[in-house]
């Protein structure tokens, strides 16, 4: 490979883009040795199209194998690697290093509001429990039809946005109401409910709305918009929440 320097659009192949140094400031916590989390810095050389996940891998694979984080797909589709990067919740695999200010260290911490189990790994069970509690499955009555249930493209479009959710928890763990006490269902659960409440085939909207009408349901949302800003799938989370609130107010979907 030649070292031709070109703009990223013209030369996507790794190696064609100049490399640079990045310092990562990682919040480490190993329950087997530490009583308190600690900060650790590493400087690595990275390339133009590299993402924060690549830098984490480089550290794990070349410097300190004990650095622990979750990841799988590496292109923003499985929801494994939500973390707090420079104070904002993002997916490490979708955050390009070149888009961050590199003159100072890039801080990487676990997402907030869920118990840290090790380094960047948090306990996801409460998050999945909240999802489960809003009955996230199609509810219908009567016998199944022999062919598909019909749904117009317009009806399909109503809940399109919230079907994109990859359950990464970036939203829920960026919500100040969720941080302050873990009782609130959190935006993701509301997104999950929205996906069914506004599905014309579903008949369980009443029940889901009733659940979300709870003391720890939608009314706790303070319209902070942190969730919308954090969502790596570009879901308009707050909008979905408001639509659920309106559905509750007017009792119609």
């Amino acid at each position, binding site marked *: 490979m030649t070292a031709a320097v070109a703009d990223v659009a013209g030369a996507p192949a*790794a190696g064609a883009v100049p490399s640079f140094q990045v310092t990562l400031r990682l919040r480490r916590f190993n329950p087997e040795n530490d009583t308190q989390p600690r900060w650790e810095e590493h400087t690595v050389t990275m390339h133009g199209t590299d993402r924060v996940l690549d830098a984490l891998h480089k550290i794990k694979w070349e410097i300190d194998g004990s650095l622990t984080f979750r990841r799988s797909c590496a292109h923003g*589709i499985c929801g*494994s690697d939500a973390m707090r990067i420079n104070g904002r919740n993002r997916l490490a695999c979708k955050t390009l290093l070149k888009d961050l200010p590199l003159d100072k260290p890039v801080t990487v911490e676990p997402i907030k509001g869920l118990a840290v189990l090790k380094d960047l790994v948090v306990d996801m069970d409460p998050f999945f429990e909240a999802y489960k509690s809003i009955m996230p*499955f199609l509810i219908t009555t009567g016998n199944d039809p022999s062919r598909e249930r019909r749904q*117009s493209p317009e009806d399909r479009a109503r809940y*399109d946005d919230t079907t994109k959710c990859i359950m990464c928890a970036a939203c829920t763990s960026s919500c100040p109401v969720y941080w302050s006490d873990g009782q609130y269902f959190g935006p993701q659960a509301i997104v999950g409910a929205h996906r069914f409440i506004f599905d014309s085939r579903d008949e369980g909207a009443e029940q889901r709305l009733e659940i979300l009408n709870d003391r720890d349901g939608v009314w706790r949302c303070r319209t902070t918009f942190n969730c919308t800003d954090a969502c790596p799938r570009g879901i308009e989370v707050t909008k979905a929440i408001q639509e659920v609130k309106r559905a509750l107010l007017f009792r119609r979907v």
Partner: protein
Amino acid sequence: MQTHQYDVVIVGAGGAGMRAALESGERVRTAVLTKLYPTRSHTGAAQGGMCAALANVEEDNWEWHTFDTVKGGDFLVDQDAAEVMAKEAIDAVLDLEKMGLPFNRTPDGLIDQRRFGGHTRKHGEAAVRRSCYAADRTGHMILQTLYQQCLKRDVEFFNEFYVLDLLFTEVDGVRRTAGVVAYELATGEIHVFRAKAVVFATGGAGKVYKTTSNAHTLTGDGMAIAFRRGLPLEDMEFFQFHPTGLAGLGILLSEAARGEGAILRNSEGERFMERYAPTLKDLAPRDVVARAMANEVREGRGSGPNKDYVLLDLTHLEPAHIDAKLPDITEFARTYLGVEPYTEPVPVFPTAHYAMGGMPTTIDAEVLADNTHVLPGLYAAGEVACVSVHGANRLGTNSLLDINVFGRRAGIAAAEFAARAPLVELPAEPEAATVALLEEIRDRADGERVAVLRRELQETMDANAQVFRSEATLKQALSDIHALKARYATVSVQDKGRRFNTDLLEAVELGFLLDLAEVIVVGALERKESRGGHFREDYQNRDDVNYMRHTMAYRSSGDDEAGVRLDFKPVVVTRYQPMERKF
């Protein structure tokens, strides 16, 4: 150590595993073990669609679908299995719809369908709209929908449990499935799951290669575990290279892009597929397109500063159309390459995508213990399995179909087996081999780094066993693999702890990858012909006289240097006699 007991244990919670769990969970006590949270499984990355001859938008039937599958697979497909899949496709799609999957719709409210590579009407006359889809996140929606149904039915999941061994007990001279051994990531504890039936649904092995559309976690665990326990692996030399991975990164841009009208162009702006496949052009099967692209680059018509990729052109499509049908993949191009697909063509190059081979099974998902006999109580479905519906080259959208059809069949078969079969005894010290494997690596004080070996493996596989192969390159790959295996005996990890020791598990996964790479290369060396995804430059034609047969790879016991012994199995031919593939 903890011991659990279930009727059926399902390993893997991707599409195949959860589809099986829905069936099995309804009938008998079922546990699902998965090394990832279910929604993190790589089925969620599938974009383009799932095909079925619903004939919602144009005339179609399952027989044409069977034919396309057989022909696309270069006649290495077991035709009885392909027929089952094509027939059951229709119900598989309708079932998903009834579970709530939000398919895109036609103006009449039916499930919409679109074109996909290799799917034709009337045996190859023209492309047909057969792929049912939900924008370009069909796999995501399948995974979500199945997960939701599992929640509804309270399926018992063991999340972040790595299955590392499969247990057999001999009863009356026959090996029978006794259970599995799993490692709990959070605690480092070993769990033995005793079960009457076990279903493997652990997905693919793309991480054998460097440039791949597969997740970091797709390390072929299920295949390797079975292989180590003496079970055969079928047709492993057939690996699919998807034409349109983002150049340099391997992230997939679905064939749906071409299904919606995108065109491949070389550096001269030529629509080169017209030369290679005059009828189907850009929608020819993947092996054909991938080879054509690699050939363009080889002959100097590649684009970019290094002339090492071709371009996928969507600029003639309406931005609104792109947003409606292909929102995710266009965002990948923007995020990862900084290319705006509305106005600029996207750099693409083939990327390792799909393992056509795997654990051989019958059409009821029963795993074969040798060329002919099933192993009682063991089932496999999904990418880990080889029912042989994909033959030498899988058609796009046939895999999401495969996981649903055969996942369902596996779940039913395993549950029915468990309902009538007795529990077999666990072998003595069931966990011993797993504990030894883990402790040996963990306790080794000093040694080579896992990442170094893995990178070298992936590089040699990319260089020598990719789209173009030859005796020389394959031999190179094999000797590299042998050297790496020797070095693997000395790897060590830095994390010596118990909790969330991903360092340790990456080392174990590397061991699986090395075994599988060897199987792939040994099979590819032996197959002196070109067929589907396997292209030998030194044998460029298909050879039906000598190679119209499945490769069955066994772990050789002891002194055989290769470590792999090959055997063969005939292809099931029912209706379609092999013919030359023209597209």
